């Protein structure tokens, strides 16, 4: 599948934003601290930029409002509806912290739950597609949720070191979710590699009972929408290298940095800088992971295009 830049930006940034908003909703940062107020603003900004970016790949973005109508059947529509609903408790929580320095339990908890539901809806857009076998597994939503949680706790750790909260509990929780997220992703990737293709050129053409089927000629010599959108391929050697880059930048580096910071304890400029580096590394790693999520997935239509 073609790894569209706008969709990678959308899923990674909104994942981080919803993760951070979820942590804030669980009252794990001091609502009166300046750092926490900044965290609220950052969470809302990440979510908004992510959602706006998702409109970037639309052919007719001016009609995007119509996407709120089909929540009965479409995960994309559900995701749109939930993202708007989730803004309500998140804005109330942010206002309570920023304006009054207070934590409100009901909007906080509700916001955290809705953040998880929205991320789940995003992941189900992909997991519901039977035509892309690599995505069509319950592990896909688990990965998305764990990555959102890991990213949320990594970002929350930055604000903890900036004076917003406990500098041992939050980094340690971040490490727990980093390990869980990458371990699940490892399983997800192993499943993808071990897949026996559900559809083959034989089943796609119905000619399997005559013999082995091989594409002789494409319908046309140049690329088309289908081959560009569904036929994206990444060289195997690069995929392995990129996977290792994702794992190191997105998992190992932030975990080691946060573990060191948690062991040393204390707040201040240096811990905040190092924790910020950990967060940036995590985002870069997840960005590569998300790129591979698309680039490595094979669509059943390629059975008709010899791919």
């Amino acid at each position: 599948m073609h790894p569209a830049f706008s969709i990678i930006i959308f899923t990674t940034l909104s994942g981080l934003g919803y993760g951070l908003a979820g942590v804030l909703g669980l009252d794990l940062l001091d609502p009166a601290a300046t750092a926490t107020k900044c965290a609220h603003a950052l969470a809302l900004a990440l979510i908004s930029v992510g959602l706006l970016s998702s409109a970037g790949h639309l052919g007719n973005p001016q009609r995007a409002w119509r996407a709120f109508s089909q929540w009965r059947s479409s995960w994309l529509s559900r995701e749109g509806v939930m993202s708007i609903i989730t803004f309500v408790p998140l804005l109330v929580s942010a206002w309570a912290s920023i304006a009054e320095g207070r934590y409100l339990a009901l909007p906080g908890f509700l916001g955290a739950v809705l953040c998880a539901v929205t991320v789940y809806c995003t992941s189900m857009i992909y997991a519901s597609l039977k035509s892309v076998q690599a995505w069509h597994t319950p592990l896909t939503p688990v990965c998305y949720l764990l990555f959102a949680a890991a990213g949320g706790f990594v970002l929350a750790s930055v604000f903890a070191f900036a004076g917003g909260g406990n500098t041992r509990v939050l980094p340690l929780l971040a490490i727990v979710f980093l390990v869980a997220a990458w371990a699940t992703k490892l399983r997800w990737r192993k499943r993808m590699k071990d897949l026996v293709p559900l559809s083959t050129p034989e089943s796609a053409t119905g000619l399997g009972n005559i013999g082995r089927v091989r594409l002789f000629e494409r319908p046309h010599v140049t690329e088309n929408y289908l081959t560009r959108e569904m036929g994206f391929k990444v060289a195997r050697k690069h995929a392995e290298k990129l996977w290792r880059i994702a794992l190191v930048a997105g998992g190992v580096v932030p975990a080691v940095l946060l573990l060191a910071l948690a062991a040393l304890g204390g707040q201040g400029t240096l811990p905040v800088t190092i924790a910020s580096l950990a967060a940036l590394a995590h985002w870069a790693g997840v960005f590569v992971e998300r790129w591979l999520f698309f680039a490595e997935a094979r669509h059943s239509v390629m059975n008709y295009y010899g791919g």
Partner: protein
Amino acid sequence: MTSLPSLPTPKKLGLVIDLDTCVGCHACVVSCKEWNTGGYGSALSDQDPYGADVSGAWLNRVHSFEVVPEGGEVVGEAGQARIVHFPKSCLHCEDAPCVTVCPTGASYKRSADGIVLVDEDKCIGCGLCAWACPYGAREMDLAAGVMKKCTLCIDRIYNETLEEVDRVPSCVRTCPANARHFGDLGDPNSAVSILVAERGGMDLMPEQGTKPVNKYLPPRPRKSLAESAHTLPLAENTEGAKGFFAWLDGMLDRI
């Protein structure tokens, strides 16, 4: 509404494509493009149409496959391999995954005749329906930013201003090999249903659970050339010649 019709549609209009007679001429492809670029919805645009990297939205395409039986060789006509030309367009599935994923209600399946259509005024061009379709039946029109797909020539089949013979999809009307048939696959007594029953019509990718309406007729079994060779009369042999040719044969022998 992008939920599928709750009851089976009373009619299941669709195509039956005969892989035995299709000669791979691409006439249906061109005829489809010609009709649909001036018909329902926006024009089917092409990008860089006269350049080296031409590409565009087409609703019907013909692929060609090589099928090699177990132990068969791939040496031209001497081997067992055969070429099958394979036209592919929307299959108007009963369980159309492209319909249910649509976030705007632009994609829908008609409850009266089962035709899957896109309401282009509602389409936001997100492309998710093209991802959901396992067959690659939908292509984005990059100029209009909306999804295009086979309409089963909805503007022909019910069009009473056309001669009755023309009230079939453009691809069916144009096929010079009579490899494409149009009709109601929900009616077991329709000509297309009888054709499917007689020839063992099949579904594409049944494992995807889409229940396609369109059916494909498999190529008939083919004798190998070697098997047919002994039935060919040898040019040197004059046995069995009668009448004038028997006399000529005798005369020429004597000279």
